[in-house]
């Protein structure tokens, strides 16, 4: 089980958002660190198959990420997404289940399970328009997990979550990451400190550092800043 990026590049008119990045993701939680504008979201879109690279490619066990089979095993949580305000939280998850091709009976079971898991049991029948930012984020996390994805890509998943929810989310991801590929981007270093098995650090579209969490200094934040400030840590 490996998700492989091979010299993947995304260029917009005058800006290179992702610059010849190569890496391989395997089972476990990989943290993607980088400042705002570093290219994390673009990279995640490339890995999700919803954005085509200008050059290079991304494959999962040799299969192109544009394939339907890949979408079948993918869970993706984007940074910003709008749920349908007229839908209830439950309807939203059932709709996403249908889009993901989950059988109706399984969809109902999985939806109820995830609603409880993300702590939306009391709000499941309320319209999404009445949800707070944190509740929407939890709904987003739930939809990403609907199809029991083998590859889980989450862009700033802890944004909008309160401290208690962050802890619950961390524990959830740590459990999921044991036998799946999980890529989690954030600019909050402490989110990764306890759960990341591996780290990738991006700056201005380039991969500045990648390696095991154990290879980093114990103070992850200090290590991140040193990598960002000193380009000597080349990949």
């Amino acid at each position: 089980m490996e998700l492989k990026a091979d010299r993947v590049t995304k260029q917009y008119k005058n800006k290179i958002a992702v610059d010849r990045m190569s890496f391989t993701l395997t089972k476990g939680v990989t943290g993607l660190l980088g400042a705002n504008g570093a290219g994390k979201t673009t990279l995640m879109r490339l890995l999700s198959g919803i954005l085509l690279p200008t050059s290079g490619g991304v494959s999962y066990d040799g299969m192109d990420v544009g394939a339907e089979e890949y979408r079948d095993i993918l869970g993706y949580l984007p940074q910003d997404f709008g749920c349908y305000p007229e839908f209830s939280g439950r309807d939203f998850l059932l709709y996403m289940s249908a889009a993901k091709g989950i059988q109706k009976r399984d969809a109902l079971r999985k939806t109820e399970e995830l609603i409880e898991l993300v702590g939306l049991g009391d709000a499941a029948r309320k319209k999404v328009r009445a949800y707070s930012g944190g509740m929407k984020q939890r709904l987003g996390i739930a939809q990403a997990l609907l199809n029991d994805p083998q590859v889980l890509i989450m862009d700033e998943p802890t944004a909008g979550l309160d401290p208690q929810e962050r802890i619950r989310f961390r524990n959830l991801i740590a459990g999921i990451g044991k036998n799946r590929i999980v890529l989690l981007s954030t600019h909050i270093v402490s989110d990764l400190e306890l759960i990341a098995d591996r780290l990738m650090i991006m700056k201005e579209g380039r991969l500045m550092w990648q390696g095991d969490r154990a290879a980093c200094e114990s103070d992850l934040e200090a290590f991140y800043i040193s990598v960002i400030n000193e380009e000597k840590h080349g990949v």
Partner: protein
Amino acid sequence: MLGSLYKYELKKLFSAKINLTLMIGSVIILVFLAISSVFENRELPGEEARALDGRVIDGQLFSETEPGLRKENGRTILQLSEGYEKYAPVLNMIMPLTGDDFDFSRLAGTGFYDLRSQKIDQRFEKQSLTEEEIAYWKGQESEVPKPFVYHYHSGPSSLLKSFQALGFFILLLSAAGLSGVYAGETADNMNQLLLCSRFGKKELYQIKFAAGITWILAAAVLLILALLIPYCIIYGMDGTGEMLQLVKPLSMLPYSIGHMLAVCTVIFLLAAVLFAAVTMLLSVVTQNALAVTGGLLGCLIVDLFAVVPDRFRLLETIWSLRPNAILMNTGFVNYRLIRLAGRFFQGFQAAPVIYILISIAALLIGRVKYSRLQVGR
């Protein structure tokens, strides 16, 4: 799964506030339009309009009508004075031939039919019809029974005349209600979730399209009912089997009003599908709901005011095939024909086939565009 997806796509459309508001607003306006026809004396309800039932439309009937007409500066004006209201249907037949100001003596004897033939010949000449086209129409005309016999037909004729309004309403509903079917997902940042789901790149496109078509057809049926029910209550539906010429005196089609109501209903429903298909195609291509709505409303204005001169035959023929032209009933007095495989087709016969073909093309082009959609391009 696909059934659930379809159900939820319908839910999105039917629960969207703008769609609900527009739908209810349109229904209210159409009901008001139907009710107001009584107050504006466009049609006579009840016994008054049945007073002339079975009367032959000839010089005798016109001579009975003439004393009831108003006179101004020695000229006869086609407006009835009190006590002569029952002759309103007679005036409705004369108006398309004469206009408001008219020398009534020309209608004596078979004058009405001579005048009608003259008007038709003038139109043939203006539209530069070929000998074959004229022969086709003469053949149609020979099947129209003469003299015309008046029978009460206020209900079905009111409905037939209202199809033009229905055409505008359905375009408006399509432009505002379906412009966001695909573009809205981009605007709401939902595309990034949908496009990376299993059915998000292919099946979802078709399901959204099917839901859009279902919604517009439901809206179209509702709009028809918004007129049909009040007209049924006010006028009844008697006269559906009467000749079309009682409503459109210049028509040479040997059909009944009911026949043309059925034709208009089919064309209206297909026009709704066409509008929906084009709206959704533009929604995929532009990914901008506001631009789609604005563009289509611009087309509506052009449709209302643009006239293509008769001398540009091909252009005028194409222009006359647009849904609102056919629904406006001008299709029944537009004598230009479309020749295909050695056969002549009238506008209202060719239009449905063209609408279906354009709708299928829109579906296929949209599918290609949708499959190439990317997020954050």
